[in-house]
């Protein structure tokens, strides 16, 4: 893995994890509908994080 690819991976992991952390913090105060929407987006984010890691393996 070259430097540019590594930088991109680090950047992606940081950004995606930041959103996941913020979303997790809001789950408790969300109503059912909103919580479902958050969970859907969080799963998509997690999948995209996995894809980013897979692409570098």
């Amino acid at each position: 893995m070259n430097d540019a690819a590594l930088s991109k991976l680090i950047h992606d992991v940081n950004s995606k994890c930041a959103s996941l952390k913020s979303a997790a913090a809001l789950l408790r105060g969300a109503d059912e509908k909103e919580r479902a929407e958050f969970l859907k987006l969080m799963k998509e984010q997690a999948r995209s994080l996995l894809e980013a890691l897979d692409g570098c393996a």
Partner: protein
Amino acid sequence: MKKLSILLVEDDPLARKVLETELKGHALQSAADAAAGLAKINTGKFDLVFLDLDLGAKDPLAGLRLIAPAASAGAYTVIMSGHDEEEIVSRAYELGCHDFYSKGSETESVAQVLTRFDRHRALPEDEQVFTNRFVTQDPATQTAIAEALKFAASDLPILILGPSGTGKTMLARVLHERSGRKGPFVAVNCAAYQEDLLEAELFGYRKGAFTGADDSRRGRLLEADGGTLFLDEIGSMSLAMQTKLLKAIEEKIFYPLGSDKPEGSSFRVVSATLEDLPELVRAGKLRFDFFQRIHGLTVTLRALRERPDDALPLIAHFMRAGGRRVIFADDAKARLRAHGWPGNVRELKRLVELLAAGAEGMVTAATLGRYLGEARAKAPAAEEDPALTESQYRKAVSQGLSAAVDGLVDAAIARCLAENGGKKTKALKTLKISTRMLYASLERTGKKSP
């Protein structure tokens, strides 16, 4: 809080949803890419614009290009990032953004950004510019500065209180810039002179007024005509000197040493001290009428330890000013906030210099400790006597004071000559020195013409 008009430009759907939730209750519009964001900025009117710095892989820094349009449209522009890339954040501030929001941070919240926006909005436009320059998020300091600025254009004397290194001189200079006065800003550190020398410095003298007065010289009071006379460390002035200065301030007329011809000068007095002036009055060291004359409005600048949230923005400011880059780990940021800063902003600037010269990569709390120790060790010398640098003092101790003073004289004359194409008359005038002093220096340094 009043319902605000907010634009959110964020390509990450989850991050967008998080912010939409946190900003619920406000009139919110969202854009998922830079082009859509720019279109909304150009057609809408927003109180706040939140811009993600990373708007997709194709153009990772597209967010930067939206800063100028958003800020110039009058919006409080906030950049967001999941990671503090100091260099990019610095660039964002240069482009005119107002605030930074760290996504995913456990210590920062959107509510804090909205509070800062509220404070920013509460200030008149020119004061917003000033507080950006002064770099403070502390409400008490912002209020003190705003209050002082209200009186910038008046003739009211202003007394600035605060510990050493809190920006008293800078505030005095800004007050002068905002005063509309055509004359110059003339600063005198009263603690840097013995009594007779201070009198000569302030009032000037005629040739032959005292031993060594080989030429006549204009005093600082005359130089400040039409401008501002900034008297730093005013608490160190003797009672006799206070009497003479009080008369000059009240009558706007004074006599240079050795002269019976009065000089007139109209200046506004801004003074500063770290001492407790009412206490000096009680102790009989400060004349009450002199105190009354200089403290028309009193402004107090707080020590940095009393406004710990200013440490990081100040460091970022000085790093930007010097074109430097250092990244702090979270534990280092916490350490900076908790630091006592005995030397205030002066110590912080010293830390920035040390970090810029020695730090590489990310600075952790462990590596920061060493730099804080060095900065603290250097700061007290500067705090005790800003007129004397540490290296000057060391030279005076090792070579004797006379040799050290000669060294300083030689260096100043050599530099002045170099800057003026070797013209001696120009050096004499610029440095206000006698021909004897100039030639003695040239002889010492072996530059005297045969």
